[in-house]
């Protein structure tokens, strides 16, 4: 449809500028991006990447407490993994063999392996469990503000910033939702505005001192009406254009990204060892999240991986669960390598955190799977993390703890909010704002587990 191409348009723009262009043209977003490009140094900052394991990961077969006599081939006939086949951590606990690549990072003391993470009166519902992990307020289903949204809102450096946080996922996670609209990107390759003249006209310009702006920016920058959602939609539109401005300013090009060193992000068309179909584009989204961490100011990015709700056919050393775990391990190892890229080494400033809404029953069910349960495993990794194993040793673990609740559930030892609390306080330096990020934090009586060096 375009009667002239982008280059011609930009040349015309430059000519217009030289001749003293009209004010409306100066406000054109394309022009604003050009202005910003000259002043586009990356802000130094602490960062975080969160990997959400949707569906409830079986912590017991992730970090295997073989020192508990309940873990055996009677309680888990098809799921049981012989200690000899797993990767020993401390003589009590071992990693699932599919986590070999994560173990490489662990050996550098850069992974905190945290067992028995949960919260009191843990929900067995996917819906409630996810909500509580994301709003940081177990028991309150009506709190729609995610921890990450509050975290970014509490950081004065990010006030008014164009691109402070981004979920790289198919659905916009509750974790990122709240009063401050953050970016939600399902595929960074599609995350741009057209640059043909009709596209530029459609997007238009923000209002100036004496006019209402033009195009969609003119519409979306007006105050929200009294209708529910009208303000949210307008803020979403503005966050979208602001984020794209930032990406354009930084020259982020998702089609030409080269991972550093041995980092790889297998694609569906070349799945390497990952053959199962439920992890669609997980590595593509991990790669895009890493690219955003390296090339933009973004503080927090999130990625999701489904396929953990293994009520049947879970598998042991091999199988569905092993495949999911190998994907996590591969991702963490590639992230750790890629973020040590000498051109942008931010590994020491970044925390990679895995979450899941609950663990699974310690006893295998009749379908060669496991059902919803209580506590599970969290991995925290990063150049500035205290590596080690938490809550899985003969000192803190009593024999039979695996089935201490209702003869089937493993109780929690560390509240997930304490992990977030330490990251917020000791990594991001926002400890003074903890209560505004995690509701009632100071009344919970939690102590930081000591994962941040």
């Amino acid at each position, binding site marked *: *449809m375009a009667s002239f191409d982008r280059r011609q348009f930009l040349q015309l723009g430059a000519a217009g500028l030289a001749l003293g262009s009209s004010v409306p043209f100066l406000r054109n977003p394309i022009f604003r991006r050009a202005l910003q490009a000259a002043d586009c140094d990356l802000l130094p900052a602490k960062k975080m990447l969160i990997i959400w394991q949707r569906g409830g990961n079986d912590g017991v077969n992730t970090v295997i407490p073989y020192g508990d006599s309940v873990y055996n081939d009677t309680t888990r006939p098809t799921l049981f993994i012989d200690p000899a086949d797993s990767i020993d951590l401390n003589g009590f606990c071992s990693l699932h063999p599919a986590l070999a690549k994560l173990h490489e990072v662990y050996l550098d003391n850069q992974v905190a392996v945290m067992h028995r993470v949960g919260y009191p009166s843990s929900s067995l519902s996917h819906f409630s469990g996810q909500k509580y992990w994301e709003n940081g307020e177990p028991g309150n289903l009506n709190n729609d503000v995610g921890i990450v949204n509050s975290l970014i809102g509490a950081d004065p450096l990010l006030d008014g910033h164009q691109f402070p946080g981004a979920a790289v996922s198919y659905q916009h996670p509750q974790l990122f939702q709240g009063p401050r609209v953050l970016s939600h990107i399902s595929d960074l390759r*599609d995350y741009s505005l057209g640059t043909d003249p009709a596209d530029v006209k459609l997007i238009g310009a923000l209002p100036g001192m004496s006019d209402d702006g033009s195009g969609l920016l003119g519409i979306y920058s007006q105050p929200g009406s009294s209708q529910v959602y009208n303000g949210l939609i307008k803020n979403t539109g503005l966050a979208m254009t602001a984020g794209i401005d930032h990406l354009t300013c930084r020259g982020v090009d998702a089609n030409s990204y080269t991972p550093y060193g041995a980092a790889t992000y297998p694609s569906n068309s070349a799945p390497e060892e990952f053959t199962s179909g439920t992890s669609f584009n997980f590595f593509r989204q991990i790669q895009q999240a890493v690219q955003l961490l390296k090339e933009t100011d973004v503080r927090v990015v999130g990625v999701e991986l489904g396929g953990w709700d293994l009520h049947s056919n879970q598998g042991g050393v091999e199988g569905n669960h092993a495949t999911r775990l190998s994907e996590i391990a591969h991702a963490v190892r590639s992230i750790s390598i890629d973020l040590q890229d000498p051109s942008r080494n931010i590994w020491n400033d970044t925390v990679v955190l895995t979450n899941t809404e609950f663990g699974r029953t310690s006893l295998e069910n009749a379908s060669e799977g496991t059902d919803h349960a209580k506590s599970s495993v969290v991995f925290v990794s990063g150049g500035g993390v205290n590596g080690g194993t938490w809550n899985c040793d003969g000192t803190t673990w009593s024999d039979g703890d695996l089935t201490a609740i209702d003869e089937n559930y493993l109780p929690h030892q560390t509240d997930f909010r304490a992990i977030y609390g330490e990251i917020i306080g000791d990594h991001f330096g926002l400890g003074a704002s903890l209560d505004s990020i995690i509701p009632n934090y100071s009344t919970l009586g939690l102590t930081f587990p000591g994962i941040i060096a």
Partner: protein
Amino acid sequence: MNARNSVCYIRRLFAAMFALWISVTVLDAQTGIAAGPTPVGLDQYRPFVRGDANVDGNVDIGDPVRILEYLFPTGPAVTLATLLPCRDAADCNDDDTLDIGDPIYLLTHLFTGGDAPPAPFPDCGDDPTSGLLISCNSYPPCAGFTDDDTAGHVLRRVAYGATPNLLDQVIAMGAEEYILEQLDPASIDESSNDRLNDLMATLVPQTSRNDLYRMHFARGLYSEKQLLEQLVDFWNNHFNTYYWTLRNHFWFELSGLYNNSEAQVQATILEHTESETFRDLALTTFEDLLVASATSPAMVIYLDSDNNVVGNPNENYAREVMELHSLGDDVVYVQNDIIPVARCFTGWTVCKKAPADYGDPHAPCLLDTDPTGVWSFHFEPGDHDYDEKVIFAGTPHELVIPAGDAIGNPEGGLDDGLAMLAKLASMPETAEFISGKLIKKFVSDTVPPALLADCIGSWLATGGDLHALMSTILLSDEFLGTANRWDKLETPMESVLSTVRAYDGTTDTWPVLGAIADMSHLPHNFFTPDGFPEVDSLGTQKLLYRVQFNARIYLETNPSYDLALLLSDYGVDLNSASDIVDYFIRVQYQSNVTTIDRQLAIDFLSSDESGTPTALDPMAADYDNRLETVAAFIASYPQAVQQ
């Protein structure tokens, strides 16, 4: 009253009013009481004619008289509701207050040629300027009248948005009549709906995954049974099964019986069959739907009923049938109920059967490898747990399913699960949960308690009859009134389809499929059993994908639009930017946009591609492109994501 008498009467009236006006003002000054005009409280809003204070269908001398009777009562106290049942009609000058200015305004109009009352006048309509400060509790002369706003609202919720033709049709036939027709889809004859039928004839939704999605989009775009399609989407999502779990089942769990593409065909067959069953039962009873879901091979596989056997119950279906399908999260049931409920469903599984035996739980199974067989629901007596089950023990809902029904009597075993489903379908908590979810879909994210109570009443009185339930919801004041308009988000599917419908676009649905896939909102593609949330998270990229889909109007030829023809058909002046903009914003938003929104669109249409103001000229080479870009622009307003 003849003309001469009325003039005399008017003079006297004016004089009396003036005297009262003075006295009231003086009185206020003396007492210091802030008298002033009284703002009128919140209440009902409905179409009316401004000026017709006595609601007799005519604007005449009787109206200022009635207002004066209210303002200056002389006789015994009469209630406001009796004197002015529609206060907004008495607000003749539309300043949102009832005072002496109103009769003066109307008298000036009636007898001295002053300005006519602001809209709605002289025809029925909603108050375009207010709706908040002053209300209209009763206005019988406009009963049955449907204005733009009401028609647009009904079409955004009951249908996948207005088409130019349908908006006028609903106004002409009346919103309630349209809803009644939609509630009886069998009465709608689509045999001559060529656009739909020709498109459907190109699809093979039974075996092609993409055609299954496209079937939903084709019907949503072009079927006249719009409510039915909305309900199919609702029930598919309520009883969610994830397509890729089924594909994985057939690909990975059947010992190499199917390769990937064959496994996809099998998964498509199950999803298509299930969806068409929901379509058949969408307006029957909830219990029918619940049983259809429980015995659907897609559900049996998705939630592991096929692994649920005596001695080793699988919790998956038992938990979700209560939490997600009937009672709601943690309502009535406790953890100790999960296992007994699971035991009721032991032996429920799938196997291949002869096509003639499809759905017969007792018909013999064929070998998995039998190419003549189809995957069907099956009850396997040997896998059923025949011991006693006690569910909701110790509560008023306690259900005891006695032991027995020997294996030789398979019907007995199958009855355990059916009894459990019947129990769930009959419980008031289920009535509340399902009604609330439907109210959230059709009426408001915040469930109005009175409407919920009506729905529960309807459910309990009719045994969960869904036609009665939907009638209760869609004919309620909460739905038809103005209180709950524009306050919900459109789903990606609603948003994309409504753009095509608003501009009467023609498409083979491939671009629709692409856009909705980009927005991760394809039917049968939510991976956890709770389904897509009704309040879909609106992310920046989903909004961007919507704008990008709208930009196809000027970028691509599919969907194809002939906007100049459309405008001509509706008599819009092709030279007038404001008339064109007004027409488009009427069809999509019933003109509910701000002055700035409207002006920016007129400016947009009155400028060339570089934004330089240039008059619109139907003869100019850029004319069609201008129409297409302004159409994309208007379709991308924030209101396009609201409903």
